């Protein structure tokens, strides 16, 4: 059915003139595609960057305001830069230690957040699929939904009784059997494995199945 539909829009058609571009090397070669795939499976940290930039803009904007006011000899808006510097130098005094400690902890946590974002690999929850023409990236959620459907059909249970968690190197299938209906975990495991092999995601995760001891009544 899908075969018919997909050719209805842009079928190959009679166009066949000119040099056939078939199997020509990609414009930027395999390395370019590899770069694209690497970029697609890793976070670009754009959101964190925008947050960081906004933070710096706010702080610098305020500093600019106070400095400019000081530079043209007007009274300060909230605090004069020199007074602020003196207060910072005198710090443990002039501020309750609890408030100071909590402020420090909050600032340190924010710093840790940014630092870890910069240092960690930032992998996205995605897998690559083999394809002869295009580079294919699949969200783990989609893989999980497909495997859950497969497991549900193999186990003959309803949709709510199967939960599949896909991570980079592992697929965990949780099944709650229907009370009174025996369930063969091996068959479900086999079905999920076969589907996964057919899919061929890279890196290939290995499959585990957990069958709940308590069943669902009346499903």
């Amino acid at each position, binding site marked *: 059915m899908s075969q018919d539909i997909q050719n209805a829009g842009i079928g190959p058609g009679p166009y066949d003139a000119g040099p056939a571009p078939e199997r020509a090397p990609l414009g930027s070669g395999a390395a370019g595609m590899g770069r694209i795939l690497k970029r697609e499976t890793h976070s670009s940290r754009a959101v964190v960057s925008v947050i960081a930039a906004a933070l710096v803009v706010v702080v610098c904007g305020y500093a600019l305001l106070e400095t400019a006011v000081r530079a043209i000899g007007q009274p300060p808006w909230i605090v004069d830069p020199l007074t602020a510097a003196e207060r910072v130098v005198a710090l443990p005094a002039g501020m309750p230690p609890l408030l100071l400690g909590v402020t*420090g902890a909050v600032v340190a946590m924010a*710093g840790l957040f940014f630092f870890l974002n910069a240092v960690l690999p930032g992998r996205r929850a995605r897998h690559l699929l083999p394809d002869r*023409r295009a580079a294919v990236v699949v969200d783990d959620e989609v893989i999980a939904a497909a495997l859950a459907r497969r497991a549900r059909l193999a186990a003959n249970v309803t949709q709510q009784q199967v939960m599949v968690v896909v991570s980079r190197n592992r697929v965990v299938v949780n099944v709650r059997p229907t009370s009174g209906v025996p369930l063969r975990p091996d068959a479900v495991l086999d079905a999920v494995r076969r589907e996964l092999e057919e899919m061929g995601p890279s890196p290939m995760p290995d499959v585990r199945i957990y069958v709940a001891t308590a069943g669902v009544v009346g499903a």
Partner: protein
Amino acid sequence: MNNTPRVLNRVLIGILGIMLLGIGVLLVLLATVPAVGFWWHEWAGGVLNFWLNLFERTQFPRRQESWLWLVICFALVVVLGLMVAWVAQQGKGRTSLIVAEEDPGGVPGNVGISGGVAEQALRAALADRPDLAGVTVAAYEIRGVPALKIRVEPRQGVAPHKLAADVSSLVEALDAVIGKRTPVLIHIGSGARSRFGRAERVR
């Protein structure tokens, strides 16, 4: 797939993170360890005196104010401008043409094929499929070479490899129509529409 400057992002976020972490740890130490307080008075007092001296020495000729304030203002404006430029770098790299080449035929001129061609063709081809919740096609420029990004949102339970094979054969048909192989990325993702929409039951 866009041209977000990833290394720059990492470096700048890392610098900001280290600075904030240092300030935070210093504040906590100041609040808890008295010895750090003494050291801080010594060190920061010295730094403050250095700056006060600098302000003294940089006064305008016949006036009280120091021109160093203007320099600081300028530096802050530069930092602000750099931050705005940094934000503007995020997610750029979209292009409108997927093919732009000189026509080898007898008529002088260039041939440009818009990314909208690919988008309309693929959308029309995928429009009738009941197992898809959405399709978006965008053209990006990767190192000067235009590339297509096809984002497909299947409904829950659709096998991604079969969908990928279908879309990929559509792309091959598109190659034949356009007459040029562009690098293509197919992203099979999930969004709100595929997550909360009805599951695909019959195929």
